[in-house]
């Protein structure tokens, strides 16, 4: 009880700390953007592309650090370029997974090179820089960095909502959409550009290696919970946001738990619960739960 009381007073001061305020400002915007973009990413079965972009983010940030410029510049340049390039290489704005695999394995190799260059050429930099890029350091954001992240994320949210309808059409039925005059290829390329920018944003919050969870887990859970496209889209954003807030709070209360882990753990927990409840519901109903973009063939 004493520990609990201490925690509640701690919770009251939480937003009194500038670093927590910055984390919440950036985290909120990034989480909503990642939830919205992630929904389309899962719907279009492009999670692997998101994985590749997370590695591009690592390489971009370290390249910028090795050259000595702002890491964010390298981050955005690398992820947006990698996203657009993968879209252009593939058929109708979707890349083949073997192509993606080869490209990002090499990008990662380059990242290792830049890490070596950075750690050997600058005495100030050490292994921790690489670790920060890989696993994020949301508590280390300055006010201006947090504001910048929030503005970019808000812009991404507006773009996704604006192109949401045609993108949904193109994602659910590419052939019909293309027959109806929806620019499927351009949407695919543009979408991966947006995913790239979102990946760069999320790298600042949870790190290059963990942003995949922020993109995939809330979206995967919301696709399990509802089949209604717009409801699922906003649910995905809401789940992502609650994982972010919950994770930041948890990490504040238990300082030995890194914030990126706390965020990811909550997001994963939500996904596991969604999967469990949807399979229980299916067994009770004795029929398949129809879900958009979700196929099930297990005999249960």
């Amino acid at each position, binding site marked *: 009880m004493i520990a609990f009381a201490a925690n509640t007073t701690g919770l009251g001061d939480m937003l009194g700390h500038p670093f927590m305020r910055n984390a919440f400002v950036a985290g909120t915007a990034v989480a909503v953007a990642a939830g919205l973009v992630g929904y389309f990413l*899962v*719907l*279009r*079965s*492009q*999670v*692997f592309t*998101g*994985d590749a972009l997370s590695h591009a983010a690592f390489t971009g940030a370290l390249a910028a650090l090795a050259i000595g410029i702002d890491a964010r510049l390298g981050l955005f340049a690398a992820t947006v370029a990698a996203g657009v390039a993968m879209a252009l290489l593939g058929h109708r704005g979707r890349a083949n*997974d*073997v192509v*993606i*695999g*080869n*490209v990002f*394995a*090499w990008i*990662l*190799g*380059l990242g*290792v*090179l830049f*890490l*070596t260059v950075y750690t*050997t050429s600058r005495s100030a930099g*050490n*292994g*921790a820089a*690489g*670790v920060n890029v*890989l*696993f994020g350091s949301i508590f280390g954001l300055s006010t201006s960095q947090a504001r910048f992240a929030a503005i970019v994320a808000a812009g991404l949210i507006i773009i996704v909502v604006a192109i949401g309808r045609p993108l949904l059409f193109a994602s659910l039925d590419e052939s019909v959409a293309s027959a109806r005059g929806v620019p499927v290829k351009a949407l695919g390329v543009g979408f991966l550009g947006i995913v790239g920018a979102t990946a760069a944003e999320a790298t600042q919050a949870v790190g290059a*290696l*963990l*942003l*995949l*969870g*922020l*993109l*995939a*887990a809330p979206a*995967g859970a919301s*696709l399990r919970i509802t089949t209604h496209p717009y409801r699922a889209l906003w649910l995905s954003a809401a789940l992502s946001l609650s994982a972010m807030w919950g994770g930041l709070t948890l990490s504040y209360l238990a300082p*030995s738990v*890194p914030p*990126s*882990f706390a965020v*990811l*753990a909550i*997001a*994963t927990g939500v*996904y596991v619960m969604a*999967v469990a409840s949807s399979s229980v519901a299916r067994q009770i109903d004795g029929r398949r739960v129809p*879900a958009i*973009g*979700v*196929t*099930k*063939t*297990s005999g249960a």
Partner: protein
Amino acid sequence: MFAYHFMVNAFRAGTIVAVAGGAIGWFMVLRRQTFAGHTLAVVGFPGAAGAVWLGSSAAWGYFGFCGFASLLIAALPHRGGEQRSDESAGIGIIQAFALASGYLFVSLYRGFLNGVNALLFGSFLGITDTQVLVLLVVALAALGALVAGGRRLLFASIDADVAAARGVPVRTQSVLFLLLLGLAVAEISQITGTLLVFSLLVMPASTAQSLTARPALSLALSVMIAIAITWAAITVAYHSQYPVGFWIATFGFACYVGATAARHWNTRLRGRAPIPT
């Protein structure tokens, strides 16, 4: 170069790892399970970090976590073809959660921060004779399993429906293959680091598959390319200041780009459809 015992061990370990990676990666690319392969590769990181944190040998962590994760991926709803969004979301979540746990273990085990880069990016140096022996045993076991079940696995990978109709247990094959992949990846990542396993799995295999459509030839080619890349990378890394992982990825990517370009040029020259991969 071979006067140093550690370089001899690096070459031994590299060769073992390349043979296993080239052979198992070939099936991985054929089965379009690159995402699963990459996720299994990454799962080695929390395994090793957790094992070190608990004070046991990292090798147990690698094998334990990779084995468990391959069963988890096998349990995900699976169907081939275009619509696999649910499966890929599941794999992505497993991957991100595994990495997050790895980060948690690392931060719980204070002062380990410099070890992170070694875990993620590996090191060919300082491999002991015992490690080489363990690698050899595991690789032989994995390759033995592949030789024993290879034909049926090939059948099931190329046409799952027909194979199922002919009585091949496709589902069991798929689970066993994922376990084998997990084993191979756990082994390779002890040398190359968890982030670079993937280059040895995917690059030689996709190069070989774009060069020839004949299964046996392409499998052999994949193993040979993997060995060549590894040997070249270790040699160059020995003489340069840059890490071996970078050279493996670069040589592998060069092979892949070369093979793809050659194939396009060839098909354009002959004016027929490209070989399906």
